[in-house]
């Protein structure tokens, strides 16, 4: 039976893994992912979840064991954060290249030195080039739903790529919000058992790991094509999930309060919740600002971004990350800029660094950024391309 209660993001992820019937969970603890794996250990101990939990000695091994289990025919779930993801770096190349549909939660946390336990997005964004699909979630409900959807996406034989379900440590991982846990039989109906058509390690019907054939360029192009195909499949899985469970997430980019907006802010992750409130207030004051929530970062929704750019003539991209010495600004804005470059009539593009090291992204900061985007729209030009918001004294928080 489905039930609804207050639930933290980490617990929601554990329920997502349980309902997806993950069979092997190799994991190593790191704050703020720890409650996720202890919830899984508890679910297994209580007999509610049937899975092999491999208590490994480090993240490198966690991902390696995930690969072995996935190739041997088991559905695999794991999770990590920050330093753990950095330590896992070498292993993170393996599942996309070997086309293993592992699902992992990237519980975002800033990276040392100058790090804290609180979140920014550098830890997951630095994995963007490896071939993982990455979906960013705003709250517990979205985490739970996305974990289940992630398996359906990853295990689609047209894709066979791992999926990272990313969410902010503390703001999502440890903040309780209303979460509906769907009925297990209904999830079974939505998500059939895992069977990899390209792998079989069982001696009696061994299929020699035939996934990578051809030159390295051909194999990598195969991964690129899978990423491209994933765009349509992620949208379709989202629609199917919405039809069945009543909750959808608009695929890659959600437009919030965007009707007749002149300018928009684009956010990712937990700050979106705060931004919704600020945009509501500003619209009540008659300001024509809207909000885009970027949910799918890999594959990057280039075509959708181009369509949106025709409607909104000034876009402010909020980057909760740093990209030192870049062509200009954070990681997300550079993706957006590339997507929009080939448009004949490009919108104005602004970029903000905010919430670095997990500092709170305040309502006042969001209002400031929205005002700057509106101002650029009105003036028809961008005065400051990249703005480090936290370096300004913006007065009282609210």
């Amino acid at each position: 039976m489905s039930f609804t209660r207050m639930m933290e993001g980490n617990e929601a992820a554990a329920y997502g893994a349980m309902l997806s019937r993950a069979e092997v969970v190799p994991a190593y603890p790191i704050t703020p992912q720890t409650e996720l794996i202890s919830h899984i250990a508890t679910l297994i101990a209580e007999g509610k979840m049937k899975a092999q939990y491999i208590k490994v000695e480090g993240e490198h091994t966690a991902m390696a064991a995930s690969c072995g289990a996935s190739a041997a025919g088991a559905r695999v779930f794991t999770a990590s954060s920050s330093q753990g993801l950095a330590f896992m770096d070498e292993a993170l190349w393996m599942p996309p290249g070997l086309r293993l549909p592992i699902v992992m939660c990237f519980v975002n946390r800033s990276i040392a030195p100058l790090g804290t336990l609180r979140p920014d997005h550098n830890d997951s964004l630095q994995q963007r080039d490896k071939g993982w699909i990455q979906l960013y979630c705003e709250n517990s409900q979205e985490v739970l739903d996305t974990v289940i959807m992630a398996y359906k996406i990853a295990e689609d034989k047209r894709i066979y790529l791992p999926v990272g379900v990313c969410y902010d440590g503390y703001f999502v991982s440890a903040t309780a919000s209303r979460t509906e846990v769907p009925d297990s039989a209904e999830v079974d109906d939505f998500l059939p058992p895992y069977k990899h058509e390209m792998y079989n390690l069982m001696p009696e019907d061994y299929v020699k790991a035939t996934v990578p054939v051809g030159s390295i360029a051909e194999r990598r192009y195969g991964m690129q094509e899978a990423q491209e195909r994933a765009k349509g499949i992620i949208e379709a899985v989202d629609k199917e999930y919405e039809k069945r469970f009543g909750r959808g997430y608009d695929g890659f980019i959600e437009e919030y309060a965007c009707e007749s907006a002149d300018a928009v802010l684009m956010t990712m992750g937990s700050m979106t919740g705060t931004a919704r409130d600020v945009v509501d207030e500003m619209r009540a004051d008659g300001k024509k600002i809207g909000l885009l929530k970027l949910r799918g970062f890999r594959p990057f929704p280039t075509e959708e971004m181009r369509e949106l750019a025709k409607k909104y003539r000034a876009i402010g991209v909020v980057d909760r990350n740093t990209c030192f010495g870049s062509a200009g600004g954070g990681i997300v804005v550079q993706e957006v800029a590339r997507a929009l470059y080939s448009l004949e009539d490009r919108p104005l593009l602004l970029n903000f660094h905010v919430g670095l090291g997990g500092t709170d992204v305040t309502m006042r900061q969001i209002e400031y950024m929205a005002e700057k985007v509106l101002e650029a729209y009105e003036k028809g030009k961008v005065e400051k391309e990249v703005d480090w918001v936290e370096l300004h004294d913006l007065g009282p928080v609210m």
Partner: protein
Amino acid sequence: MDKNKLFDDYYKKSLLQGGTTCCPGCGGPLYWRMILETLGPNTILYGGGPCAGCASRNIKLPRFNLHFSFVADAPSGIVAALVAKGREDVTVVSSTGDGGTGDIGFGKISAAAERNENMIQMCVDNEAYMNTGIQKSGLTPYGAWTTTTPLGKEANKKEIPLIVAQHKVPYVATTSVAYPADLRAKVAKAKDIKGFRYLHTVMPCPTGWRFDPAKSVEVTKMMVDTWAWPLYEVDHGVLKLTVKPKQRPVEDYLKAQNRFRHLKDDQIQFLQKTIDDKRDMLLESDGKRIII
């Protein structure tokens, strides 16, 4: 008799396909043939060794491999998947070289041993990073020349088998391709035990040890006969010397290889003393429980 047919028939039956890319005189193909004949086809193999996949890529068994630095980790996942699928009849074998065991994967071996993963972990030890062109590893012996120890290695070889045994795993054994009956018996024993089993085999490497490839087995046998590589097992905590050869001076073994040709008399005496001390320790513990 048609010679080609003889080979064809052999390789049809063998689990190791001919035409490996191993150097002449490499112990690898010899080793794998013996191991695979004993393990049989109901086996999943992870990893390589010696020297990347020179021999192991020719193995006709389900194989999975990630990269050199991944030791005993992916097979832990395979073991878990087999449990999840209710398939405990399949033997999982995880293999790596001396660098994988003693250096970069040391923590991983220790962790898999602590978890008592149900697999046979093998160290295929040719005493240096031979695949990359003879660089020193933690299992290179004292005094040996490598390209990163041009004056000879200053430190000792790590005692990995005894370290693994201290993890209270059910079975640990040292083996040598020069003693095939001993090797096969240990593999057969390991196959029938559940839990983490560790087999450590020193593998002759004419290229890195600098000797005539034709003398591969001879040199390897000398290593055992000088007690530089004693053959023993630790079965559920009890140590047993399985081969007790009449001891030859270590100098015979050292002189057979150019990697030791620069050694001075006092260094040879140091090695002899180290070997004698270890021999005494092993003889004293023979038949006794050494793990608490």
